[in-house]
C-alpha cells in the first residue's frame, strides 16, 4: 500500500502551500493583535463601574462567546459586505472574504481575550491601583503602568495557549473560500487528486507548530513561576 502515497505532490505544491501558510500567519497575527487590544478595552469596559460601558461590553462578550466560531465567520462574510455596502453606497463585494474574516476573527478573539484579561486584571490586589492613585496617577496611568503590566505577566501562559488555539482556528476560514494553509491544500488536493497526502501534511505541520509552541509556553510558565 505504501506505493499508493505520492509525497512528491507536496514538493510540487510548495509555492501554493507556502502562500496559504503565509495567509494563515497573516490572519493569525492580525487577529491576535486586534484581539488583545480590543480584548483589553472590553475587559476594562466590563470592569467599569460605569454601566454605559459595562453593560454593552458584557452583552457583546456573552453574545459572541455563545455563537460557534464558524458561524461568526459566515455571518461576517455575508453581513459585513452588506453593511459596508449600505454605508458606502457601493454594491456587494466591497469587503471580500479576507477582510470579513479579519473582522470576524478580531471580534471573536477580542471577546475570548477580554475574559482572560478581565480575570488577569481582577487577579491584581486592589491595593495596587490604590497605590497608583495615591501617587496621583489617573485611571489610564494606573492601568498602563501598574495594573496591566502585572496582569499581562500573570496571564502570559494562558494568553499564549489561546494564541495556539487561534492559530488552529485560522483554518476555519477555508469555509468562505479563502486560500489559507488548509484551503490551499484542499484546492491543490482537488486539482491533483492527492488530497490525503496534502491533508496529512497540513495536519503534521499544524501539529509540529502547535506542539512546539505549547512546549515553549510550558517552559515560560516554569520560568515565571520561579520568580
Amino acid at each position, binding site marked *: 500500500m505504501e506505493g499508493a502515497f505520492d509525497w512528491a505532490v507536496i514538493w510540487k505544491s510548495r509555492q501554493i502551500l507556502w502562500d496559504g501558510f503565509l495567509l494563515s500567519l497573516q490572519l493569525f497575527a492580525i487577529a491576535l493583535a486586534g484581539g488583545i487590544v480590543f480584548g483589553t478595552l472590553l475587559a476594562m469596559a466590563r470592569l467599569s463601574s460605569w454601566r454605559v460601558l459595562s453593560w454593552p461590553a458584557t452583552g457583546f462578550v456573552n453574545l459572541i462567546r455563545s455563537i460557534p466560531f464558524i458561524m461568526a465567520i459566515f455571518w461576517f462574510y455575508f453581513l459585513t459586505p452588506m453593511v459596508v455596502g449600505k454605508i458606502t453606497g457601493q454594491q456587494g463585494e466591497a469587503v471580500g472574504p479576507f477582510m470579513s474574516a479579519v473582522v470576524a476573527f478580531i471580534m471573536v478573539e477580542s471577546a475570548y481575550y477580554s475574559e482572560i484579561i478581565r480575570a488577569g486584571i481582577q487577579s491584581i490586589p486592589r*491595593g495596587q491601583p490604590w497605590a497608583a*492613585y*495615591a501617587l*496621583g496617577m489617573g485611571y489610564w*496611568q494606573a492601568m498602563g503602568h501598574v495594573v496591566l503590566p502585572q496582569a499581562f505577566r500573570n496571564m502570559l501562559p494562558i494568553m499564549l495557549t489561546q494564541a495556539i488555539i487561534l492559530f488552529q482556528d485560522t483554518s476555519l476560514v477555508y469555509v468562505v473560500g479563502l486560500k489559507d494553509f488548509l484551503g490551499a491544500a484542499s484546492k491543490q488536493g482537488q486539482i491533483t487528486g492527492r488530497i490525503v497526502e496534502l491533508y496529512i501534511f497540513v495536519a503534521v505541520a499544524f501539529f509540529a507548530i502547535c506542539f512546539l509552541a505549547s512546549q515553549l509556553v510550558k517552559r515560560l510558565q516554569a520560568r515565571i513561576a520561579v520568580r
Partner: protein
Amino acid sequence: MPMIDVQKVSKWYGAFKVLTECTTRVEKGEVVVICGPSGSGKSTLIKCINALEPFQEGQVTVDGVRVKDPATDLPKLRSRIGMVFQNFELFPHMRVSENLAIGQVKVLGRSRDEAMERGLRYLDRVGLANQRDKYPGQLSGGQQQRVAIARALSMDPIAMLFDEPTSALDPEMINEVLDVMVELAREGMTMMCVTHEMGFARTVAHRVIFMDEGRIVEDCAKDDFFGQPRSERAQLFLSKILHH
C-alpha cells in the same frame, strides 16, 4: 486653616453604614493617631481623606481644597498627600529605584534623572540606599515598607497618611518602620496614622482619635487619652491592647 478638615463624613456600603458623621481636623505639623477595634472604620476614614474611598455625605478639605468638589483635580490633590498602606503596595514589577521615580516622572513631570536622584536621597534616608536595584519581592517586609515611605516622601507631600503601616510586619521589623515614622514626625510632617502601636502614639502623637462602629468616639490630646479616656469603650480597648 487646618491642613486636613473632616466634616461630618458618612459612608455606606450598600445598606451598611461604615462611617457615621465623622468630624475631626489636623493642623499643619500635627501628628494624629487613629486607633480602635478592627472593623471600626479607621482604614475607611483615612482613605476618604484622599478619596480612595468615596463617601456619600460630608466634606473633606485638604489644604483648602475640597476633595469631593467635582472641580477638584483629584489626581493632583492626591499627589500632594503621601499614603502608606498596610501591605506596602510597592509595584512588584519595578525595581526599587523605579518605584521611587515613577510617580515623580509620570505625575509631577520631573525628569528621570531628577526623580532618580531625589528618590535615592530618600532611600538613603530610610537606610536602604544599597537596595536600589532590587525588586520589592527580594526585600523583607520592613524594608518594603521603608521603601514605600521613601516613595511617598519623594513626591514632597504636604501631609502623610499611614494605614496600619506595621500590621503586616513580623515583630522584629516593626521598629525599623516606626523609627522612620518617629523621625518624620519630629521633623514636623503633618501625619495621620491608623495604628495600634501605642508606644508610637505616646512618643510622637499630639492627638489620639478612637473609633468604634464607624464613629469617632474620642478625639483628644494624647495625654488625656492615655490618662483618662472618657468613654468606656476606649478604656476597654486600651486595657486589652496594653495589658501585656
